């Protein structure tokens, strides 16, 4: 009897905790606040406080990713374009490259410009990237280099959303419908 009592209590507790009006996944009770030390597109060291004051969408990837990363970032660009101007101005997308060997600040600046002014590229030392990845329980890894020095990077496909105080709020996945993503970002900007 005790074997199922604990999971049952846990799921009832978790169900009670999550806000049923979010259409993407509510992670406010299970994920920590934003906390990192990285390097921005100007080569400047920054921490999470530099990004307080706006709703933040956090995505991990790398610029040599031909398919998934541009597809995800383009989808976020499309979602933010559907927001009212004054709401969009309160949203930023932090693209954290887990491939600092190739993704220098200059490369990141050029890359994020493609998606829109609210897209910001960050990267850093492996230990700082690991700290941020571990904090949000995501992982990344490098594939084998070919003869030309090309390699793939495996990385989390999740987008994390934080309120302007850096508190974790939502997990947005590739299979969440676009209008659910737009609706939740809009609600997050309004509600925090």
């Amino acid at each position, binding site marked *: 009897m005790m074997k199922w009592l604990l999971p049952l209590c846990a799921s009832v507790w978790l169900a009670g905790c999550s806000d049923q009006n979010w259409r993407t996944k509510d992670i406010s009770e299970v994920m920590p606040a934003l906390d990192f030390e990285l390097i921005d597109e100007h080569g400047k060291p920054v921490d999470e406080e530099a990004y307080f004051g706006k709703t933040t969408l956090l995505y991990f*990837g790398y*610029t*040599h*990713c*031909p*398919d*998934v*990363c*541009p*597809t995800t*970032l*383009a989808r976020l*660009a*499309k979602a933010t374009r559907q927001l009212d101007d004054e709401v969009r101005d309160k949203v930023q997308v932090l693209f954290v490259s887990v491939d600092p060997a190739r993704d220098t600040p200059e*490369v990141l600046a*050029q*890359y994020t*410009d*493609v*998606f*829109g002014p609210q897209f910001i590229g960050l990267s850093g030392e492996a230990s700082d990237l690991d700290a941020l990845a571990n904090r949000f329980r*995501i*992982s990344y890894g490098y594939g084998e280099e070919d003869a*030309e020095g*090309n390699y*793939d990077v*495996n*990385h*989390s*496909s*999740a987008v994390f959303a934080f309120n302007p105080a850096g508190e974790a709020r939502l997990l947005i996945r*590739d299979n969440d419908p676009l209008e659910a993503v737009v609706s939740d970002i809009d609600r997050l900007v309004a509600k925090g």
Partner: protein
Amino acid sequence: MNRVHRNCAMGMLALLMGTGAAQAAEIEVSDARLRLLPGDLPGAGYFVLHNNSDDIVTLSGAESAAFESVEMHVSMEQDGMAKMHSIDGVDVPAGEQFAFAPSGHHLMFMQRTQSLSVGDEVEVVLDFEGEESLSVSFEVVSPVSQ
């Protein structure tokens, strides 16, 4: 008719259809676009392959004068992780179509040999097993235009 006679007939038919043609009439490609990233970052190629023939068709590779190398890749998500791996061929059954589309199969274009801009047309040669190659014009698009 038995297989030998059928192969002979098909062979003669192929010859009759003319080897000078740039297009293999039974295989068509639509919606071909090359999604460009800045600098020398790899590009992704997407298209729909229509196999209008009575036989299975196997896409075995691609080349382009605009890039040093072109590979075929498939993206997948496994336990919340995005991964991709290269593949040697894609079979398209008779009468069916196959889409190379975002988050799935894509051509990966690496190391461009010339500068490219959104709006350009890039010639890509698609290779097929036992069939003529097909030259396809890919429109260069931006990731945010879709």
